């Protein structure tokens, strides 16, 4: 199964929900009823887009559909365009400079370590000299977990003593990595709830130290977000962004029935692009984010024909 299929299969269930919502709307004929639009809004809420974003999108759909002079109004097209517009407006092209650092941050259990491991394999596959730094010195066996990923991906790996100051481990790892010619430095950090100010302070320190250890080296700071997350993702992204200045998102566990519709809201509010999607537990289960495919899977073409 290709990766796109995997990702699309994952989105299948939401797609079904959206489709049935769309059908109700489309069956209403060319005149767009309030009720139908409300039903459509609800399906967006079901995909975790959040009520305010869903409302804004439906409003846009309504406006653009009104202006639509084609004989039969394709609401699905309007919906797709509205969502895509939100995502594309923030989706800048991505290429990690050489050398470049990616710092993975997020709440507990979002999938940071797994994502770090997959990213290592991906960049190594592109011929980059990758170094993994185990910045999670807190969770039991976090370093062992990353060690295993490093072995699977066949990349260099630096860890400190368990319980050591993560900033010190990161400092050493980056300095020695750069000295040894690594050009892709991936830093895993401990999971932290965004409302714990001491842990957020620790993260700020890691970022500061990383800048000191690798002055002038490009640093990406990605928030790893579980696709199952609901409206709290807004708080997460806001807080992490405020503390360390995020540059992107990785949406994990998108191979289930969770849709991660919240990234649409995040694009709107914080302008954060999604960089990768996690689609499974295998090393190559990571795909670059493509807004077009994402929306296509969310609002499938079949929806139009079914009416």
């Amino acid at each position: 199964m290709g990766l796109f299929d995997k990702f699309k299969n994952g989105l299948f269930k939401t797609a079904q929900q959206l489709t049935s919502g769309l059908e109700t709307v489309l069956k209403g004929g060319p005149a767009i009823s309030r009720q139908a639009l409300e039903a459509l809004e609800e399906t967006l809420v079901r995909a975790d887009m959040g009520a305010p974003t869903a409302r804004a999108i439906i409003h846009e759909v309504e406006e653009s559909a009104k202006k639509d002079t084609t004989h039969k109004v394709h609401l699905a097209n309007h919906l797709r365009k509205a969502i895509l517009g939100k995502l594309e407006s923030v989706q800048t092209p991505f290429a990690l400079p050489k050398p470049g650092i990616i710092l993975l941050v997020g709440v507990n259990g979002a999938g940071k370590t797994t994502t770090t491991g997959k990213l290592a394999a991906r960049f190594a596959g592109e011929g980059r000299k990758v170094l993994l730094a185990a910045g999670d010195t807190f969770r039991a066996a976090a370093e062992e977990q990353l060690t295993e990923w490093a072995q699977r991906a066949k990349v260099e790996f630096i860890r400190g003593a368990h319980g050591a100051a993560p900033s010190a481990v990161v400092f050493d790892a980056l300095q020695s990595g750069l000295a040894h010619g690594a050009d892709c430095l991936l830093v895993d950090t401990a999971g932290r709830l965004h409302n714990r100010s001491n842990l957020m302070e620790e993260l700020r320190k890691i970022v500061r130290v990383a800048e000191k250890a690798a002055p002038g080296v490009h640093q990406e700071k990605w928030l790893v977000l579980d696709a199952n997350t609901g409206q709290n993702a807004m708080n997460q992204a806001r807080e992490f962004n405020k503390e360390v200045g995020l540059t992107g998102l990785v949406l994990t566990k998108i191979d289930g029935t969770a849709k991660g519709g919240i990234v649409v809201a995040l694009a709107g509010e914080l302008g954060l692009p999604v960089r990768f999607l996690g689609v499974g537990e295998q090393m190559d289960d990571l795909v670059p984010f493509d807004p077009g495919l994402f929306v296509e899977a969310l609002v499938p073409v079949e929806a139009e024909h079914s009416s």
Partner: protein
Amino acid sequence: MFENLTDRIQKVFKNLRGQGKITEANIEETLKEVRLALLEADVNVETTKLFLEKIKVKALGKEVALSLSPGQVMIKIVHEELIQLLTPKDKTANKLKFAPAPPTLILLAGLQGTGKTTTAAKLAAWLKKDGRKPGLVAADLVRPAAIEQLATLGKEIGVPVFRPENGEKALDVCTRAVKTALQNDCNILILDTAGRLQIDEEMMNEIAEIQKKLKPTNIMLVVDAMTGQNAVQVAQAFHARLPLTGLVLTKADGDARGGAIFSITSVTGVPIQFVGVSEKMDGLEAFYPDRMASRILGMGDMLTLIEKAEEVARQSEMTKKLSKPSDFNLDHMLEQIQQLTKMGSMEDIISMLPGDHAQKKQMMAQAPDAKRIKRMEAILLSMTKKERQFPQLLDGSRRRRISQGSGTRPDEVNTLLKQYDMMKKVMKKGGMMQKASNLMGGMGKGGFPPMGGGMPGGFPGGPGNFPGLPGR
């Protein structure tokens, strides 16, 4: 920023003064606000609909008591209905069940990253504290180092861990653990399984097989408090394959409202049994419907806080002995400081208070931070018992010694003594420990803002140590 339901509803009723009854007309707008509040809390769309219908029926035609506004009546109805739906019909449903013949089994299931391994260890610690003999079974063979993680946690809490050997599969290690539990001095086994997607047939078969073969008495679904709309679908799929007996809500120390767990329990009827807070091994609490209801509605977890304070009060003996305010000495101050730390970190405490994020941040900034409290404790502990009982003994040379002994600056010692003097003065005036405690809070940088008078409900003679908790 999310508004809490109280604010939302008050806003609606601002324009509807003097109405003695809740009518169809004034209820519509309120229900809209309730709907938004529930959706923001990640309560599932369908559950929200059903809930609103119930509320409507209950509220229509309800007389509004003179002392209350229609808004307050609505809030009360919503809150009470939520509590009712969160409370299992069968009172014993939310307790762990024990098998007639040991070992009792607790099977943990859930999606990846919800906190099963941490919960397994916390449960073991909880059971051990309860005088039972738990064992942990590492049956997650998928995630790298999951076994090491459980082994490390087991060691930390002093609970044996059964690990897979020689190519054993998940079911094998569970079966062996059950067979050898008693000879390993374990009468309860907690089976930590791999995280799995509910649509992953192979993995769902694996856990269904464990359930079929070993018939665990307790089967718990571990649910992340941050879960969104997908929660019900996931829980239903697990429930279809495994007869769930309970839910554990994890990461409840975050600021997620946790509405997903409400949807799960109301759709499946599976009761919520435990709530996980913090990454520490004692961060597992019993579930209380009223607190969860307040949380979902964004009204803060005051009750947990009050309970914590009460627990500290029970433990505090010396404070009770202090009958005359003039007896207040540095020993009492030391005890107060130690009680304050027992209630948890300032962060823990503040996170349970109502108020939005910005307010909490401000509180956090003004609260005496843990480091500062620690330094105060160090200063007090560097004094002799006699010095603490008779602070007037503290002349310049003793102060110097104390500052050196505690590794603090001399002016910190002086500040502490000044604070002590102030506390004593206030106590003499007011004669209440309560007031002194408010001053304790004032030791922070800018002083803790008094937020409306003491601990809600009042703590007669209790610790009352927490600075200026908002009254309700």
